[in-house]
């Protein structure tokens, strides 16, 4: 191993450490709260329901904490971090223009990929050891029994499972040289496989297809109770090795890029002679007429992908799935204790509203809209500083505030598009599958969703404007969203007094899908967003810009 390996490990160590820290805090907090809940309610639930919601049969305080915090939030978080690292290893170096100098040394492209993969693996082994430590020590301190649970096997399978997504991102990044595409494709696979592993086992005739989802193997064989599942490890290990080989082949067969830009769908069309004249008009002069329009173009790929995902997969596909599972769901729903309903975001599997609340609006929709608003918000000012384009931009007679406002307009518009795509997808599903949901309430839910997206996008704007660092702005705002969401989930089961202080309560705690608009919620989310964004202006105007 050489300098590339060491450099990769050290440059990503902070992101991994922050992820592990956030997850550890959640775990400790979660276990402490679960300890205070009467767990007998879980005994009333059928085993297949418990398996479906990721808790497993014979649930107790410890397994609830491990499964809910590590297997769901933890796996999504670690998988997400692995994807960002995997995408940045090859394509990120091309984007930054550093790959040329790196490969000027006597190092083959293949070795670059192998060392990057080894670095990724090392980082997550370290993360796994840290999580294992937290997973073993916390029950000791909180006096929770973990007899019969295999924490080591559980954490190992979790890490091997999630790090696979990082290798996938590495492969896409090596083949395309575009980090944005690598992140887009790998996160889509992550989210789709997460949903497939949860939903397919519930649809009769499709149960076996769940095995096609990589996510399925994270919990295959119930490693928490039965220890490491060797079959799952073999599947995940082979898939990871395959991805690394794919990356090795990919980087060796193409021209490397130097300081490459983002892909631009409309821009691509513009190079087509047939479309040149028309697209030239649309993308050329229009694109450069205002900063906000240019920013709209800049984020078109990410935002359109997320919007199509929300419209197509989340909306259109979920309708038929729910219609198919209706009877099973209704039967299971009868046995729900209210505490469990609360834990899953107030949803009730027995109704279409409950199903959509849990499957779409509970976790996936907030993640989707925040991917867009946080990305645009964090990069509003800090992205231009990072790319060294701000000096030229501000050489024009425009103020820093003007630039920020223009970027905000783009964030507001793309957030609106994602929220509308979600609304349109679910509304169409409602219409096609005749689910009987109230359109006005659906609209209300999407408005609440939009405001939640704006709020965390606003946090990213604030951090980007105040400190000028994209990574920190994205990390802290996404991390804050994650922690606050979990705190809110825990507060709901525990009836914690603090739940009304979390934005997630005002997003979904009042069940807008059932009760429609909540004026207080809308007011609180709007005011919080306005304060966050408003306070970024003076901070931006006061500080030195990074050059």
């Amino acid at each position, binding site marked *: 191993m050489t300098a590339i390996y060491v450099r990769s490990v050290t440059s990503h160590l902070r992101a991994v450490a922050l992820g592990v820290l956030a997850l550890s805090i959640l775990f400790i907090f979660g276990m402490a709260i679960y300890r205070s809940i009467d767990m007998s309610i879980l005994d009333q639930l059928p085993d297949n329901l418990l398996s479906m919601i990721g808790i497993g049969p014979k649930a107790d305080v410890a397994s609830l904490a491990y499964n809910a915090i590590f297997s769901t939030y933890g796996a999504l978080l670690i998988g997400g971090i692995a994807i960002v690292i995997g995408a940045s290893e090859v394509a990120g170096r091309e984007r930054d223009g550093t790959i040329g100098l790196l490969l000027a040394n006597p190092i083959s492209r293949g070795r670059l990929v192998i060392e990057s993969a080894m670095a990724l693996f090392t980082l997550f082994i370290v993360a796994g050891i840290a999580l294992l430590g937290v997973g073993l020590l916390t029950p000791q301190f909180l006096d929770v029994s973990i007899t019969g649970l295999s924490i080591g096997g559980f954490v190992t399978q979790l890490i091997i499972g999630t790090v696979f997504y990082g290798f996938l991102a590495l492969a896409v990044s090596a083949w395309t040289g575009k980090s944005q595409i690598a992140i887009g494709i790998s996160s889509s696979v992550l989210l789709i496989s997460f949903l497939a592993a949860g939903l397919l086992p519930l649809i009769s005739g499709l149960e076996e297809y769940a095995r096609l989802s990589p996510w399925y193997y994270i919990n295959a064989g119930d490693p928490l109770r039965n220890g490491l599942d060797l079959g799952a490890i073999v599947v995940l290990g082979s898939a990871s090795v395959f991805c690394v080989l794919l990356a090795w082949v990919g980087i060796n067969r193409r021209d490397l890029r*130097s*300081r*490459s*830009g*983002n892909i*631009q769908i409309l*821009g691509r069309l513009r190079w087509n002679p047939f479309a040149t004249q028309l697209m030239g008009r649309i993308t*050329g*002069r229009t*694109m*450069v*007429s*205002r*900063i906000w329009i*240019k920013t709209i173009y*800049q984020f078109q790929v990410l935002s359109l992908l997320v919007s199509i995902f929300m419209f197509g997969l989340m909306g259109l596909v979920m309708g038929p799935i729910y219609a198919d599972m209706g009877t099973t769901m209704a039967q299971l729903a009868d046995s729900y204790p209210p505490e469990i309903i609360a834990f899953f975001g107030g949803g009730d599997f027995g109704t279409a509203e409950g199903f959509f609340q849990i499957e779409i609006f509970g976790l996936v929709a907030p993640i989707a809209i925040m991917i867009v608003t946080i990305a645009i918000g964090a990069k509003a000012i800090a992205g231009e500083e990072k*790319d*060294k*384009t*701000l*000096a*030229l*931009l*501000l*050489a*024009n*007679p*425009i*103020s820093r505030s003007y630039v920020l406002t223009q970027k905000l307009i783009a964030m507001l518009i793309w957030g609106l598009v994602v929220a509308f795509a979600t609304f349109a997808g679910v509304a169409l599903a409602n219409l096609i599958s005749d689910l009987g949901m109230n359109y006005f309430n659906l609209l209300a839910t999407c408005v609440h969703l939009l405001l939640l997206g704006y709020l965390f996008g606003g946090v990213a704007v604030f951090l980007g404007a105040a400190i000028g660092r994209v990574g920190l702005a994205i990390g802290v705002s996404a991390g804050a969203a994650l922690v606050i969401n979990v705190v809110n989930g825990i507060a709901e089961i525990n009836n914690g007094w603090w739940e009304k202080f979390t934005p997630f309560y005002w997003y979904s705690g009042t069940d807008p899908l059932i009760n429609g608009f909540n004026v207080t919620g809308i007011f609180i989310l709007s005011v919080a967003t306005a304060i966050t964004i408003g306070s970024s202006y003076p901070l931006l105007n*006061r500080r*030195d*810009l990074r*050059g």
Partner: protein
Amino acid sequence: MEPALITRGLGKNYGHLAALVDMTLTVEKGVIFGFLGPNGAGKTTAIRVLMDEIRASSGGASILGLDTHKDSVALRHKIGYLPSEFTLYPNMTGADLIHFFANLRGGVDTDYVKVLVERFDVQMTKKIGDLSSGNQQKIGIIQAFMNKPEFLILDEPSGGLDPLMQRELQGLMRETADSGGTVFLSSHTLSEVQRVSDRVGIIRQGKLIALESIGSLRAKGIRKIEIELAREPDVSVFSGVPGIRSLLIERNRVFISHEGKMQTLLAAVMSKCELRDISTNEADLEEVFLTYYHEESA
């Protein structure tokens, strides 16, 4: 006539590190002012303060009568700026970028842009990400000049340009100054500054150590001289010759760092030795600084 640029005790600290110290400077209108210093001397820091990208820790500055901080937006209507390390949006074509900045700026004469494009011979329809660094630099130069600014700030503008294009740029700077505009040219290349500037400010370790007209800088005549003699000379040949700052004798070859008129040096050598060959080179910037330090401490 009001000066184009006035700085009063301008300073910038990063924690305990003083990147710019008490810079007081006046630049008259209609001149090319060379701002000379080695890498890391504080040139870019000074320029970034003038452009209001970073804020002065002490002192202040005004350009064309406008405060560089309080009136920065109004001021930028009158300024053209080329940063030292910049990136252009890689997905845009050159034409897109110029159009984008022209939209932000307003009042840009498109015919003049065409003239600049022709002068610098740059492909405007290609994506910037696919252009060479020299061509990207040309687009940067065009955007700096396109609004016919009254005050130009150019930070190391010749980077990546071939000699022909460097001359084109120098011509453009001269035309700007001749038509009443002012050019603030930052560079670490002595020859570039000597060739084009009217006045020179020399900065080192954040301090402005000298302000000279280009004539007096030239008169100092700091250069490196290599002399080849028929046989190895005695060191006494050079003792007492004014202007010698350093001397190295390697058999029949002599390496001298010299300041001032060469006449006395040549007379001294030729009176005692047989001269076979002589070559002179421009002095390193460091030697020029040593000269000024020498004067400062004297």
